[in-house]
């Protein structure tokens, strides 16, 4: 059982110091979680810490490869509004 960080990570450092297992490392192009060390915070905290502070939706995946923070769950922007805005900007 381990979480993972994917390329949408913006390298903001928020997760690294709060991991109770020191499983998170600075790396390029983005931070990585050592799957051997990650415990998903079981026994330490109610919620996985990295996924609780990460500001980027979809940047952290659970053991099944699902986004812990779904689109719209952190910014409050409904995904269809975000898509419409992106399409509108691209059309300019």
């Amino acid at each position, binding site marked *: 059982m381990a979480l993972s960080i994917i390329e949408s990570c913006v390298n903001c*450092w928020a997760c690294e110091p709060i991991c109770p297992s020191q499983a998170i490392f600075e790396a390029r192009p983005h931070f990585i979680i050592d799957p051997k060390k990650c415990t998903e915070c079981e026994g330490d905290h109610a919620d996985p810490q990295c996924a609780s502070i990460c*500001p980027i939706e979809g940047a952290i995946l659970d053991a099944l490869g699902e986004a812990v923070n779904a689109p719209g769950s952190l910014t409050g922007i409904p995904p269809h509004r975000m898509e419409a805005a992106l399409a509108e900007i691209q059309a300019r």
Partner: protein
Amino acid sequence: MEMKILGQEESAAKSGCAASSCGSNDDQLSHLPDHIREKVHNHPCYSEEAHHYFARMHVAVAPACNIQCHYCNRKYDCANESRPGVVSELLTPEQAIKKTLAVAAEIPQMTVLGIAGPGDPLANPERTFATFRALSEQAPDIKLCVSTNGLALPDCVDELAKHNIDHVTITINCVDPEVGAKIYPWIFWENRRIRGKKAAKILIERQQKGLEMLTERGILVKVNSVMIPGVNDEHLKEVSRIVKAKGAFLHNVMPLIAEAEHGTFYGIMGQRSPSSAELQALQDACAGDMNMMRHCRQCRADAVGLLGEDRGDEFTLDKIEEMNIDYSEAMKHRAEVHAKIEEELTRKNAEKAAAKQGTQFVSLSSLMPAKATRPVLMAVATSGGGMINQHFGHAREFLVYEASATGVRFIGHRKTDLYCSGNDTCGDGDSVLAQTIRALEGCEAVLCSKIGYEPWGMLEDAGIVPNGEHAMEPIEEAVAAVYREMLESGALDAPREEAKQATA
């Protein structure tokens, strides 16, 4: 090297006083006790007067954040952008220290080093305090300051006091969790992500506690607020009263910056920014309770230079890597430059005092009509020295003054490039001229040294009278003269809207 520094000194002296507001409005700080004025008189962000002479820099060492604000997008980084939270190059504390020493040596007018992001400095305590610790030892002639959302502030106050950080800015957008829930979607607190009103309540309590702890220790606190129309605009009057009562010395109400291309909640959801008139009205309403700051340029988290300018490009990592800085030598030169500036400021203040007693004050007031007439906003193009001395087309910003029966006062500044210097590749393709004219909304005249034929016509169509007749005259006197001309021509008899129709 020496030549270069001398050259910079010269150009700084030339840029001198962009707003002659530092003549008329520096009593912004005059009610403060002497020990506070002593601390802020050479801080470009806090003193209306100092910002024309002293420079500041921000180092981007603090990427992590512990809250989300609806006006911020953590993914964003565009070099064209100039606004808080935006930064191009994240620095380690070691790099930040080196960069600060390099800038301090090259730009001796730099007196203030701030850490403001791109995340929250106190959510990155190790990186932030490593930077402060080294700089307070190696460069004792640089003032240190920090901006924070306040969530971690109470835990950091003792550490802040240790490093001789006497200026802290807290962004306080609300004191009511109902309002806060519309601004902050979540906070990270005691190992959990907390949302909604509960989150806002915790954040507000922590901000207020931090404010009280800082003022108890004699650390200066400025409060920043983002004005969000329909969300916290009315509420900010109460915020202003409360933070003043708790000892904040300055309140800086800034307009929301929200565009869809920023990808922020407010930008995408179409939350509008306040108009210049709305911002001014709120600043005036808060001014009864609080010293208001009107010259904030909302700079980037890695800005370098005088307020409103950014020389960050001269100090990128690869460039500072090649610089060899002898800081003890630089400090001597810095002290000389600072002494010269102080000398000039003292001289200017003396001249101002003399002028007030002499004819200038009388002539200004005698220009003013006896009966009450409506106030008029005028925009001024200036490149410094308190004079009308800039071509309309060269102005990157305009200073706005209000003329009324009681005199002339500085209101604020309007940017013409609207936070973005990219041309065709970003933005909505509006012509720069059309944007400039929109930025001058509410002004009835624009005073500049010269102006081209095309903008002249467009300004007139927009109900703004271009005026190049006062080139090289002092700003306040010219504004007063134009006001008198308007009075004599009958332009002040009609309310603004009718006047506009009459000229159209």
